């Protein structure tokens, strides 16, 4: 049992991995020795490299963790003994010697924070090193200071510190831009957040009304379905739901549509049970079905067929809505999805935008259609979404 083939296999695997590791390390070491050009080129490279490293840390805005990492890079850039970054309320990071001065810094920087120019404080009795304190201006506001400490504050250090402070300001503005872009996207999603279409309410109520005299029992059932449907659609908590819940909502929706269209709408489903508990964005599938009914079948003569398929496809769940309705022109659809033209396919664009936002640009809707050929809409959702609560 000991001399098993598996052991040999394991041995081969371990040796192969060891070789791979050695090769990877060797390559890395070799690369670091590679010639990098003249001294000037190397200095430029080092400066840019330090700046871009520091930039990464500042992209989340002025906060203690980012500032601490960035100050290390920036101190190397300025070649000073110590470098500190503050915001308007306190010292965020101190890198290098003389940290005992930390409590004093806010006092020294008060003038700069109030909108004054770069301050130079020479070394003296209570200060072992000279300090250069430059404001970080984002727009017109001063959001903090960069303070550099060196034995003597020459003109070079003063200029360099000001430049570094301006550069930090640019990064902070970028971070604010990022933050506002996120806010904008959230606002957009909230605005996009599935709205139940007014046409649908009107049509459903009319259809129900027509049954009240002829078939009161059915009318009553339909009102209950309508109430359940609206309760689901109007719910306020959570941006996600499970496929199973979304299917129930589609079921109610189709019941109401069938009240209007009768047997003109035929539906078939093929659902892999494995993906029923997959988390999907709230009301992301129902608008696609509604689109199939309204734009695919309503305009068509005779009965139409909608098929809803859910498949397990590796790490993804693959959901498909297909109708054999009138279809549409792909070019027109493209400009509609890109937001260039206003159409009444708001549902499609809405779902597409939300999917791209939540799962990345590669995971939007895939739509195959041509005039008269029906429409196939495919949506791929990762099965694993530990961050999203249904």
């Amino acid at each position, binding site marked *: *049992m*000991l*001399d*098993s*083939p*598996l*052991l*040999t*296999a*394991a*041995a*081969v*695997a*371990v040796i192969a991995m060891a070789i791979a590791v050695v090769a990877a390390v060797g390559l890395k070491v070799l690369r670091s020795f590679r010639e990098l050009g003249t001294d000037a080129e190397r200095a430029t490279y080092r400066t840019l490299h330090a700046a871009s490293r520091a930039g990464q840390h500042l992209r989340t805005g002025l906060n203690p963790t980012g500032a601490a990492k960035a100050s290390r890079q920036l101190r190397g850039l300025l070649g000073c003994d110590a470098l500190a970054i503050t915001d308007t309320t306190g010292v965020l990071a101190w890198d290098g010697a003389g940290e005992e001065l930390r409590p004093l810094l806010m006092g020294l920087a008060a003038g700069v924070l109030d909108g004054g120019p770069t301050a130079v404080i020479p070394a003296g009795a209570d200060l072992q090193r000279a300090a250069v304190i430059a404001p970080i201006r984002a727009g017109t506001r001063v959001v903090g200071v960069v303070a550099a400490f060196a034995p003597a504050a020459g003109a070079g250090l003063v200029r360099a510190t000001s430049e570094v402070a301006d550069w930090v300001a640019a990064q902070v503005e970028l971070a604010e831009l990022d933050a506002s872009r996120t806010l904008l996207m959230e606002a957009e999603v909230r605005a996009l957040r599935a709205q139940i279409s007014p046409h649908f309410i009107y049509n459903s109520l009319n259809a129900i009304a027509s049954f009240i005299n002829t078939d009161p029992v059915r009318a009553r059932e339909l009102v209950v379905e309508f109430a359940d449907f609206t309760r689901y659609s109007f719910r306020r908590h959570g941006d996600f739901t*499970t496929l*199973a*819940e979304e*299917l*129930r909502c*589609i*079921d109610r929706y*189709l019941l109401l549509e069938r009240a209007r269209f009768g047997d003109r709408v*035929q*539906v*078939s*489903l*093929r*659902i*892999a*049970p*494995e993906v*029923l*508990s997959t*988390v999907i964005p709230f009301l992301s599938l129902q608008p696609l079905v509604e689109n199939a009914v309204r734009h695919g079948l309503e305009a068509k003569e005779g009965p139409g067929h909608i098929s809803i398929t859910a*498949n*397990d*496809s*590796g*790490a*993804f769940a693959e959901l498909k809505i297909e109708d054999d309705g009138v279809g549409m022109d792909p070019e027109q659809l493209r400009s509609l999805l890109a937001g260039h033209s206003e159409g009444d396919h708001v549902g499609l664009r809405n779902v597409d935008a939300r999917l791209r936002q939540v799962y990345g640009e*590669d995971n939007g809707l895939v739509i195959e259609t041509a005039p008269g050929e029906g429409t196939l809409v495919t949506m791929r959702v*990762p*099965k*694993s*979404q*530990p*961050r*999203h*609560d249904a």
Partner: protein
Amino acid sequence: MNPALGLAAFAAVSLATVVIGFYGLRISRTTGDFYVASRTVRPWWNASAIGGEYLSAASFLGVAGLVLLSGTDALWFPVGFTAGYLMLLLFVAAPLRRSGAYTIPDFTEARLESRAVRRVTSVVVVLVGWLYIVPQLHGAGLAIRTTTGLPAWVGQVAVVAVVCVTVVAGGMRSITFVQAFQYWLKLTALAVPLLFIFFVLAGTGAPAVADAAVNPTGAAPAGPYQSISLFVALLFGTLGLPHVLVRFYTNPDGQSARRTTLIVLGLLSVFYLFPTAYGLTGRMFAPGLARSGHADALVLLLPGRMIGGTAGDLLSALVVAGAFAAFLSTTSGLVVSLAGVISQDVLGGSVRGFRLAALVSAIVPLGFAFMTESMALAGTVGLVFAFTASAICPVLLLGIWWRGLTDAGAIAGMVTGGVLCGGAMVAGSLLGAAGTPSWLAQPAAWTVPAAFAVVILVSRATKSRVPRTITRLMTRLHSPERPLATER
């Protein structure tokens, strides 16, 4: 036995697998009725599917062979294989289902908020999967050689080809029903021939040629250390098997995950009665098989030997069908979960990437299987369990139950467990069966505690790296969820 019947049995099982894979879903769920379509998989179905996926070549052929060779000592294998599910039930099933993570790398990444941990976990998971596929292929080679006389590689290539075709062509889209079918096929394939054998024995009153308590090879029994170490490996190893964990996501919630596990325990217990009975019958009536080195083929050969004639041939064909069901189901389950991990981490998660990854995850172990020679199936699978128990289990268990786990601790633990256990396996293979001390031959008893200790110590030393969202994560893992809106 008749080679044509063996081939026919293999062809029939492959065909059934493919047909159910492609059409089973269509037959069962093509309906306009939302109520029927959105019914989740019942715990019974899911438990059968887990049984189908879990019962590998080691269980189908290996356990009986081992009982033949070492008698009641070998019972630790079925006991351990089954008891692993008790651990799963108690400590892992429900919290993992609630985490929403779909694979072990997904789970560790979500739990520790670290891409590095994800990468290390993925490497370990892929390694485990590959190592686990190799004995399945050896089993397939053995079965083909024993029943048809063709060279072993024919069986290995055939299994890989069938798995590749079904997985790549998308035939495993609703794998639950395929796997559930495989469980019942395996059970039938073992139970029916055994009943016939008992009937024949009772009818003819043929006396036993040997005592069941006597070891036909005369080898020394395993010491208590080896038994304990093996048990540790099987108990903890089940927790980390990638293809087993994925099944639990078919359950709609944590509670039904637990119920499923309970049924699995029952199904496995029933199943393991049969290989054990084969082993003991073999000891009493065909001890020669043990001496001729055909122990793993016992299940395949016994019906033909005991019954003979056309009836014996047909029963042997049934056993062959069950054996191939075991190779196909376990291999395809592993290939699907490995392809998921590889395509997501390396190829960006596209459909094409998944297919490519499926090919890679089936063909690499085929290469391993070619390079190595099959010995004892149950033993090699036991070592894979030891590896899983050392490398994955500590991080999984502590990730679910200990707030203090950090990314550094997890990586250190996985590397330690993997290197120690992998090193022991390599050392064992270099020293050879005779020269290996038992602590190297069965390393789990010390590698698993070592991995746990390293995870805990390193996590303690890097306390500041505990994710800030730990309370939210733990609440999610351990508090009951809202029920799914699938029932009216």
